[in-house]
């Protein structure tokens, strides 16, 4: 039995478009809950202290839902990570090995950050006086850790496409040519706008969640809360649009390599580039135009739809830019890697995927029967033992 041929690792087991589709779809789905903890947790813990009555209520509502939001975000993040490792290993592994300790610290921070959310929420749910300084501190620590985790991710993803920096980073962070795992991509000018751009998108997603929650789950809060939520969402959306425009412009015009710039501003990619840039104003514009109307399902649904579009355009644009930037590593291109589709396992996956969606629909249908206001106030208190 001859061993694996050194020059021929197993080919990609799916057509490249398939891998690309699930990578982008997974990233898009991951961004929704990730955005909510990225900006939502810092905002919520701040407003809980400094906000007015309705701002505190908004903070409580978001944080009570946060354990599920975090769970969703982590699990949805596995999808793009899986397909990233499948087709982009040659770039992704070196980048993360160079910054191994920081990359591993993501796991080390995610666990306490998640428990911190639970501990903080338990302070809100246990009644007056139960939000002790330690519980409050747990929430603040979680907020900081989520921001730091975002910074590390921005490092890893920007370093993945910054192959030119690898040799120098290895020289400065190595023992006899072996990486110490202590490098960061801070010298890369694209790192900072990439990290900050995600904050803008996160503000927009938080705005969309605010109107959705107000019409869907906040029925008991009353009309005054809905009006406040609508106004708060407008402010979040406008702030997100301004932030995204500034950091996006910095990213495009200040850090894009000439080849990326040339391709993304050539027809037809320029349409995508322009749409991605201007789309961030959609949710804010709609909320501004309807600011004197009462919040309803149609309006909330439209805002959510527009924000979904913003995130989708971002995910697709980022993917195209990443592929262009990685031509140095995958010659002639990442899409040109040999493929040998594994149709049987792929069919099994797709069948299980569809069946899984069916089971999920059944599960959520049971929730609808359980009552009009599902309890998201689940395991806020610490376990019995």
């Amino acid at each position, binding site marked *: *039995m001859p*061993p*694996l*041929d*050194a*020059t021929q*690792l197993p080919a990609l*087991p*799916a057509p490249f478009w398939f891998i690309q589709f699930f990578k982008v779809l997974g990233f898009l789905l991951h961004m929704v809950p990730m955005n909510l903890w990225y900006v939502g947790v810092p905002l919520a813990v701040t407003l809980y202290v400094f906000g007015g009555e309705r701002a505190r209520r908004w903070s409580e509502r978001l944080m009570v839902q946060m354990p599920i939001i975090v*769970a969703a975000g*982590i*699990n949805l993040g596995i*999808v793009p*990570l*899986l*397909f990233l*490792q*499948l087709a982009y*290993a040659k770039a992704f*592994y*070196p980048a*993360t*090995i*160079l910054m191994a300790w920081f*990359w*591993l610290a*993501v*796991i080390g921070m*995610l*666990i306490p950050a*998640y*428990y911190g959310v639970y501990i903080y929420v338990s302070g809100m749910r246990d009644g007056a006086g139960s939000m002790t300084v330690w519980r409050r501190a747990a929430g603040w620590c979680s907020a900081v850790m989520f921001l730091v985790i975002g910074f590390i991710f921005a490092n890893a993803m920007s370093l993945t496409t910054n192959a030119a920096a690898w*040799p120098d980073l290895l*020289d400065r962070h190595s*023992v*006899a*040519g*072996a990486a*110490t*795992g202590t490098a960061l991509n801070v010298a890369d000018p694209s790192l900072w706008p990439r990290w900050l751009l995600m904050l803008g998108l996160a503000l927009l997603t938080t705005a969309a969640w605010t109107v959705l929650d107000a019409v869907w789950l906040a029925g008991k809060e009353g009309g005054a809360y809905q009006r406040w939520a609508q106004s708060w969402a407008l402010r979040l959306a406008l702030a997100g649009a301004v932030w995204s425009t500034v950091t996006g412009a910095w990213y495009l015009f200040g850090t894009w390599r000439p080849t990326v710039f040339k391709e993304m501003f050539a027809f037809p990619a320029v349409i995508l580039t322009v749409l991605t840039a201007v789309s961030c104003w959609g949710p804010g514009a709609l909320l501004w135009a309807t600011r004197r109307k009462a919040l309803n399902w149609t309006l909330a649904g439209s805002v959510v739809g527009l924000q979904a579009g913003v995130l989708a355009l971002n995910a697709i644009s980022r993917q195209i830019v990443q592929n262009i930037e990685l031509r140095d590593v995958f010659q002639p291109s990442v899409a040109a890697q040999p493929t040998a589709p594994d149709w*049987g396992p792929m069919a099994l*996956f797709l069948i*299980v995927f569809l069946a*899984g969606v069916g*089971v*999920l629909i059944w*599960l959520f249908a*049971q929730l609808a*029967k*359980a*009552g009009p206001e599902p*309890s*998201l106030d*689940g*395991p806020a*208190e*610490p*376990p*019995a*033992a």
Partner: protein
Amino acid sequence: MHYPWWYVPVITAPMLIAAVSIVHVLVSHYAVGGGLFLAVETAHAYRTKDREYLAYLKGHTKFFVWLTVVFGAITGVGIWWTIGLASPLATEVLIRTFVFGWATEYVFFVLEITAAFIFLYYWGRLPEKTHVAVGWIYAVAAWISLVLITGITSFMLHPGAWLDPATRSFWSGFFNPQFLPQTVARTGGALLLSSLYVYLHASIALKEQRLRDLIAARSARPALLGALLILAGGAGWYSFMPESAKAALAAAAVLNVLAALIFVLTGVVFVLLYLGPYRNPGWLSPGFAGALVLFGVAAFSTGEFIREAVRKPYVIYNVVFGNQILPNEVAELRSRGYLEGARPEGRSWTNAYIARHFPQVMDPANPTRIDEKKFLDLPRSEQIKIGEVLFQYHCNDCHAVHWGYSAVAMMLYGRTEDMHLDMIENLDRAPFFMPPWAGTREEAKVLAAYLASISPPRPGGMVPQ
């Protein structure tokens, strides 16, 4: 070489995988067995209209979700993180071979998480039958996750027919010789470990003796069944191991001790289960339950460590060596040079590093090519430095340097440089669980020089000296 090597002082990078994996499996098996416990016992409590038992089960579910959905899930992701950092080539091979196995497992994982949250958060809000059905969805999805992951991890110990290009496929790799034994053993482990956690939780959280006795009695049978499945699966695991893994188990004294320890610990757990919860449910005190968990966790951790250790010198048997090269590359590396790299396309990380730091050894006719013969013209201090690069990439996956995990300096007391050279050039001959030497003679010499520079002298006072 194919990827930059991650130098982790003292413990070495792959031991991080072992650490994260062991912590994870101690929770993930509870996530499987605990789901079954909750589904079965909630149905029983509804059927017998035992409100107190239901109240306990709700409290246990909170503990369960807190532990498995947060710590269990994130440490599972943590394994991904660490294998990509410490064994990138092996991870690449695994993902390219089993991506749809992982993707399918992910679907079940999402079902698990969703069902777990609904089971807890809608407690008392759903019709009883629906609530139990949600519990069963969790339990079944969690067990299928276990089966799918076991197919992939067992492949690493023995890929079976996958090794033959004529029969190489996802299916031949997944249904490898180790698949069934390890699935049986892990199913047993899930049943046993979850019962032990339930005992500990109940002994602390419950004051009412009736409920403690009820839980002790009802969970004893699955726990005993679990212990038997572990033994059956363990026997199969041993029977279907590759010859080299059996030999490694027999040859390494530490593995002998650990293997014996598993049987002793499992036996102790079995006897304690029989004497305690099965025959005398009233014995279930926090101290007794704590001892059970302690023995169970020790047995489990030992088993996981052995499972990892017997694969040496491979990460994936006959596919990828621990030092991240492929068996087919060895001959090419011996000819071209380890630092040069075997793949014709692109430059290896070691080649690029040498070119930057030791330009004098590059071939003037081809500046991207290392001329190994020039190594021996370098001053000895430079030879040692190149030898250290070789050590990092060829050896550090299993050996720390001066002290720590399997530290190489501690193994080389009093050896001469000639002895080092002989050992390097016959690396896989004396101890078969070492990988073959995969470099040129010049590279072996500079590595020997490096080893000589870190070898302590023969301890003094020994007779004859």
